């Protein structure tokens, strides 16, 4: 048996070591073990290669709100996703990505505003200059990534619809297609809905992404249009948006409906507010070069209040007890 070079195995990524012959042989081994019904989902992530990178045509400007931390690899960010409409396993959204049809796409805007309507994706995107925002993304499951998003501020988009004085909240809805593989069972009360207070929505940090890493937004990451709210847990950043509604009452949110004692409306990243499932004090940073053996021993890092965005986001909650309004 060949001697295993541990340091080498720990250091290199699967994309670098997979020559076609080896890949074919690995497939055979996997198929054999799958036939035996013994490996379960273990073999599945092997197929993951990440999304196809389709570069954006738009000119992309940089932003001072970007972090200079090491970014997560495109491969990692497109193979490890929570997008339950495409399946509940982390590898499912990549596997089922082509089941999501993003063309044609339109967004309904309604509720407390003077310029509602049904807009095509082109209508939505046209007036906006595209910038890059490199944000930390903190999942409630205590892992995090650093992702360069491409898009524009949500506030700039919302202003176009002329919200009126009764618009206290903004509600969002994800695509509702019963054909999507994850939607056949009521894992959540479909369609997925989220919401923000209007001042949260208008905060300069709050971002609407139509791309990432200078590429078109892959389906598994919420194509063609998704929200990014960097100081809140990831599930607030709703994917594949089909409806934006201005409301005078706090809108329902999917995870809050599923387990109100675990997921509040605000869902701000807060290491001092413990969650019934995960201590939120620390997080595992998935930076992309930490696959295989090396990842087993990568230390967790401390989670920051409001995910490190307190300077801009904390004033939103000046008079609030964030332990009560979690």
């Amino acid at each position: 048996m060949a001697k295993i070079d541990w340091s080498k195995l720990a250091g290199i990524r699967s994309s670098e070591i997979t020559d076609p012959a080896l890949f074919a042989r690995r497939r055979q081994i996997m198929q054999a073990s799958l036939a035996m019904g013994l490996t379960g989902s273990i073999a599945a992530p092997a197929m993951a290669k990440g999304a196809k990178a389709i570069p954006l045509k738009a000119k992309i400007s940089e932003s001072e709100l970007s972090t200079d931390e090491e970014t997560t690899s495109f491969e990692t960010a497109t193979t490890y996703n929570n997008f339950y409409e495409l399946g509940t396993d982390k590898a499912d959204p990549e596997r089922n990505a082509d089941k999501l049809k993003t063309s044609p796409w339109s967004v309904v805007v309604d509720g407390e505003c003077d310029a509602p309507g049904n807009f095509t994706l082109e209508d939505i995107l046209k007036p906006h200059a595209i910038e890059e925002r490199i944000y930390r993304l903190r999942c409630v499951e205590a892992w995090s990534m650093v992702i360069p998003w491409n898009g524009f501020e949500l506030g700039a988009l919302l202003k176009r619809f002329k919200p009126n004085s009764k618009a206290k909240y903004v509600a969002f809805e994800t695509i509702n297609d019963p054909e999507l593989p994850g939607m056949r069972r009521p894992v959540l009360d479909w369609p997925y809905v989220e919401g923000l207070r209007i001042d949260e929505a208008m905060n300069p940090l709050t971002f609407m992404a139509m791309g990432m890493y200078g590429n078109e937004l892959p389906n598994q990451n919420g194509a063609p249009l998704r929200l990014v709210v960097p100081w809140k847990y990831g599930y607030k950043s709703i994917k594949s948006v089909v409806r934006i509604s201005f409301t005078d009452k706090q809108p329902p949110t999917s995870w809050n409906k599923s387990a109100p004692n675990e997921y509040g409306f605000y869902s701000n990243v807060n290491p001092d507010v413990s969650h019934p499932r995960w201590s939120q004090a620390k997080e595992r940073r998935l930076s992309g070069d930490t696959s295989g053996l090396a990842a087993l021993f990568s230390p967790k890092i401390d989670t920051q209040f409001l995910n490190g965005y307190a300077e801009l986001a904390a004033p939103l909650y000046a008079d609030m007890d964030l332990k009560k309004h979690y």
Partner: protein
Amino acid sequence: MDTALQNSPSTPSKATSASTSENKRRTWAKRWWLKPLVFVLALVPFASMVYSLLTNQLGPNPIEVLTDETGEWALRFIVLGLVLTPLRGWLKKPWPVQLRRMIGLFAFFYAAVHFSIYFILDQQLDLVAILADVLERPYITAGSVAFLILLPLAITSNRAMVKRLGKKWQSLHRWVYIAACAAVVHYVWLAKGDRIEPFVYLAIVMVLLIVRLKRVIA
């Protein structure tokens, strides 16, 4: 044919011990391959995990994948162990019960790997955080209970302990039902959203418990 039934502590042996061991020897001569085969098969999931890890096939968060997989395999072996006793009755063959110890030990093996990954790799031996987890998060409490029950069962699984504990061994090892319930509750409570898998295990364990209770009452 009825060797295992006669050996089972719950059904007192009518045959002499000499003929029992003679029957036993003959049964094993016929099925000498069974235990080694099951042993190797039971190691396949573990080998598959190690292989996938060393070839970087577990995705960006291998600790999460390994924790989930080892946990699920522990539960599968617990359930398999509980199936073996009624299976003997249904098949009227002794071999299922002859595999019981090995399957039980594999359940413990996967549970121990599962626990070690949590303790060493996930929590990185942070005892304060682990204690807080066990006390504050009900699903971790349930999982810890399951593991703490399996531990003495694994230790007392050898022949010498069966002899030494006599009748007490049987009542001690009935605790595996509590461990199975705790393990399933652990899974039900940790699953996010309305997931079907934990409830499938819950249903199986409930059916096996009812089968067992019916036999005890009858």
